[in-house]
């Protein structure tokens, strides 16, 4: 396809959200109408809701503010790239904060009822049979956040303008759930609730060619690989008397590996070993050095991130 073809358009009114099916190769544009509005966003594998977008995995791979050229990943053990951020005209999104909730507005502000992203997400995805317990931490589009010196996450005002947008390209069939963030008494959306425009399009060949390749690995497991693939349908937890633990690579077995260091090597080791952590335990200090060296020499991305290459 040489150009994008618009499939549907929708205005998301303040206080609301919408579950939208987005098939592989389709693009969801989330666009500012008046500017300054945060959009909380979640998504599920359309054919298996137990696979869902995971902010923890996404922030490990792409940092606290994923933008153009990054992916939204599903939770372990699936860990697949679900969506690709094709374009982002602002470049400031958040995966630090969870969705805001009714509890926050009651505890901090005294509201008996208040628009909040958890309940909006829950109500929107109810159209597809999901429950409030199925809402996951949201990817917060246009939300301006950071971490202060004490290690606390903070949010501040945003600078998005009318017409700013984020384009999300589906890499698998997904149910997307965007919502207008319910926070009007916080800085998140500059103290107002405003509509957002949603547009679903079929991607062009140019769009599809922009997606970098990501590795497909054996560790990306699906229910066919699970020892227990059955979704539990009742609420209480009861011990399975037939359970027998099968943890991988256990028992952990230690092997001693003597390393004879020359005088020169002893001097090198003494100069760099981490006595601040390991004291006089040279074996632990040398093990630290060995794997620290390995990380520096062989890791191709941030710790825990896959190597993402060109298409």
């Amino acid at each position, binding site marked *: 396809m040489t150009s994008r073809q618009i499939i549907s358009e929708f205005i998301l009114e303040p206080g609301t959200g919408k579950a939208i099916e987005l098939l592989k190769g389709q693009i969801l544009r989330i666009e500012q109408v008046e500017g300054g509005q945060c959009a909380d966003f979640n998504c599920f594998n359309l054919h298996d809701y137990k696979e869902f977008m995971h902010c923890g995995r996404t922030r490990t791979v792409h940092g606290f503010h994923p933008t153009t050229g990054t992916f939204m990943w599903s939770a372990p053990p699936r860990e697949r790239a679900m969506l690709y951020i094709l374009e982002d005209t602002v470049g400031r999104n958040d995966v630090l904060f969870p969705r805001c909730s009714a509890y926050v507005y009651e505890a901090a502000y005294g509201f008996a009822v208040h628009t909040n992203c958890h309940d909006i997400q829950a109500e929107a995805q109810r159209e597809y049979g999901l429950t409030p317990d199925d809402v996951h931490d949201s990817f917060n589009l246009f939300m301006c956040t950071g971490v202060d010196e004490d290690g606390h996450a903070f949010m501040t005002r945003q600078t998005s303008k009318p017409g700013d947008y984020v384009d999300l390209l589906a890499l698998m069939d997904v149910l997307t759930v965007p919502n207008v963030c319910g926070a009007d008494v916080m800085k998140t959306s500059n103290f107002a609730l405003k509509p957002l425009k949603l547009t679903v399009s079929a991607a062009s060949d140019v769009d599809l060619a922009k997606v970098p390749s990501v590795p497909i690995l054996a560790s990306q497991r699906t229910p066919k690989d699970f020892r227990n693939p059955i979704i539990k349908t009742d609420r209480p937890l009861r011990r399975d008397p037939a359970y027998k633990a099968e943890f991988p*690579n256990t028992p*952990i*077995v*230690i*092997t*001693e*590996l*003597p*390393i*004879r*260091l*020359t*005088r020169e*090597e*002893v001097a*090198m*080791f003494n*100069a*760099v070993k981490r006595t601040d952590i390991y004291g006089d335990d*040279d*074996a*632990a200090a*040398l*093990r630290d*050095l*060995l*794997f*620290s*060296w*390995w990380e*520096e*020499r*062989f890791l191709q991305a941030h710790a825990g991130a896959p190597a993402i290459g060109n298409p």
Partner: protein
Amino acid sequence: MTKIVKLRLNQQQLELIDRTIAQGVAVDRETLVRLALREYAAARKADTVVETAR
């Protein structure tokens, strides 16, 4: 004076260093550890020189 340090590694850690050896980085485990020490120390020495020069 030479010194023997008895590294204690589990099977997963040994698998990683054995795969690294299989890539041709070193001929055996002890050689790999000594290469790691030399490269790690050299990198810190270079860092120190840069810091001192500033």
